[in-house]
């Protein structure tokens, strides 16, 4: 059963407990200065954005069919069956294709390190595997960040909108974006006022490249045969000429 996170901005009070808990869980520095940074970075995997009296979290969406994992040549990023998209630095070669490909600009890089790695929220892969909820959900005092089965959370999100249509935008961000994501968001004001793109395709991004890549095994024998065939045809006349010349040479007894 795939897990997920439902973040309901209307219930959020902006206390940033989730930021704190995330930092502790991942061994990241956290103080007032970090708390004031309203961007995710190599040392901050999630952030609570404030706009007047509204809030919004940003973090890795842990996509159902993640672009980052699909593009990683060495499988350092992986979508686990439980939902989290995890990272294994020992495989990574630092090509940063994951950063270029992520539609949400999530993966960050340790630019200043001599042995840099990719950094992003991994939806507490270890905790989730142990049957626990994510650190952020556990720490949330209001239930704005809720952990559970993705399907159940999706139903709940729909119900909340249905029961309280005045309170919400009729949009569950992450339900269908780029093929659906494990993290889903509810809000009363447009998502793009917090920098979320609302023009994203509903198609899973890896399909765009897979469409081409999946043809290669068929293409190689066809194209190879074609090249070999052209060679064979274009060189035939030459072979004939050589054979004739050889024959003449031998008959003439020159050698």
């Amino acid at each position, binding site marked *: 059963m795939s897990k997920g996170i439902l973040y309901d901005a209307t219930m959020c009070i902006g206390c940033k407990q989730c930021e704190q808990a995330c930092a502790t869980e991942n061994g990241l520095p956290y103080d007032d200065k970090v708390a004031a940074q309203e961007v995710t*970075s*190599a040392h901050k995997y999630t952030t609570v954005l404030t706009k007047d009296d509204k809030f919004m979290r940003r973090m890795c969406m842990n996509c159902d069919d993640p*672009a980052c994992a*699909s*593009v*990683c*040549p*060495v*499988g350092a990023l992986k979508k686990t069956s439980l939902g989290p998209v995890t990272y294994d630095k020992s*495989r*990574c*070669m*630092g*090509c*940063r*294709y994951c*950063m*270029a*490909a992520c*539609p949400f*600009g999530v*993966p*960050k*890089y340790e*630019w*200043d*390190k*001599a*042995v*840099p*790695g990719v950094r992003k929220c991994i939806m507490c892969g270890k905790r989730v595997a142990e049957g626990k909820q994510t650190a952020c959900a556990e720490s949330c005092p209001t239930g704005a960040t809720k952990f559970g089965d993705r399907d159940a959370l999706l139903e709940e999100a729909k119900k909340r909108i249905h029961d309280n249509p005045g309170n919400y935008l009729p949009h569950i961000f992450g339900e269908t974006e780029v093929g659906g994501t494990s993290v889903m968001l509810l809000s009363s004001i447009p998502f793009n006022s917090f920098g979320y*793109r609302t*023009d*994203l*395709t509903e198609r899973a*991004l*890896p399909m*765009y*490249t*897979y*469409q*081409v*890549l999946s043809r*290669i095994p068929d*293409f*190689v024998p066809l*194209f*190879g045969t074609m*090249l*070999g065939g*052209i*060679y064979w045809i*274009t*060189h035939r006349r*030459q072979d004939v000429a*050589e054979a004739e*010349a*050889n024959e003449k*040479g031998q008959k003439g007894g020159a*050698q």
Partner: protein
Amino acid sequence: MTVPRIRFTFWKAVFAVIMVGGIYCTFLRFFRGLGASTNLSDQFPWGLWIGFDVMCGVMLAAGGFTLTAAVEIFNIKRFHSIVRPTILTAFLGYLLVCAALMYDLGLPWNIWHPLIMRNPHSVMFEVAWCVMLYTTVLALEFSPIVLEHFKLKRALRVVRSFMVVFVILGVLLSTLHQSSLGTLYLIMPNKLHPFWWSPLLPVFFFLSAIAVGLAMTIFESSMSSKYFGRELELPILRDLGRVLVVVLALYGILRFEDLLHRGVLKLVFTPGYEQRFFLLEIFLSVIAPLGLLLIPKVRENAQGLYLAAVLTLLGFVTNRLNVTITGVEIAVGGRYAPKWTEVVITVMFVALGFAIFGLAAKYLPIFPEEKAQIPALREPSTRFSEAAVPVHAGD
């Protein structure tokens, strides 16, 4: 002759300065990290080194497969004499691309990981394998030149008997590799500006590689006739110019149709940042060279061909940089310009390319002696010609 001597020393000095700068920047890159030595950021994980050194490096190496395909597979013998320089360029190009990758990768010592860690769904995985295999094939295609120089006849015969296989593999791998650099960007439909994102990206990259391969061959031949005092093979270059016209026209029409069907055409006439770069690219890569080459006087003339070739090269370099940098600026909300260290490293690679090409041209049988017909790769009538002419035909 004093004039060429002075120029030679001058270029040597320039080269030395570039190398000193390059070594210093290499030190910065490997001891201070990517952050200190580049303007790369979380918004711009790819910059000049990917956009130019890798993307353009591979593209500029395309003459190798274009010409070997024409000569060895399509058996167009006219082009025989210019195959070797293009193979040298391709081989050098790929070696430099590999070197540049070592600078750009965050963990370069893991560069071999794709050998044992597979993700066939990743275009980068395909790219990695293409780079490794094609560099190997290029080394093999290049080897007869070295073997000939050292008169290792037996090894030469062995390599030559397999040459057809290498050539076919080379063309196949190049086709995959050139197009896959475009495929890399297919996963960014919401990120790359619609001028450049297209489901046809792999086709565009492949077609433009052929155009650049031809332009590069014209460029090289002109340069080497200037600096190595070789006779210019004008009739051959004229033929190449004609092929270039056809390829550019195909490319231009396809780009136009693609913009039309995706409904992006009106953007072309809406002033804007991306629009300016797009127009610059299209002007340099298609309109200007096509316009020039369609004038018979220009097409028949060495300077005209040279100019058209240079424009084509500049145009497609602009294209690759647009795809890598300009096209994503709006989506990530920022601008990128390379840091001086990035520029110095790139210039160092270009200088190294020129220098090694010059050395190889001087010491290895890259260019055919006047009159003596050197078989480009495979000696089609080895047995016969050896029997008839005891002294090896290639020397």
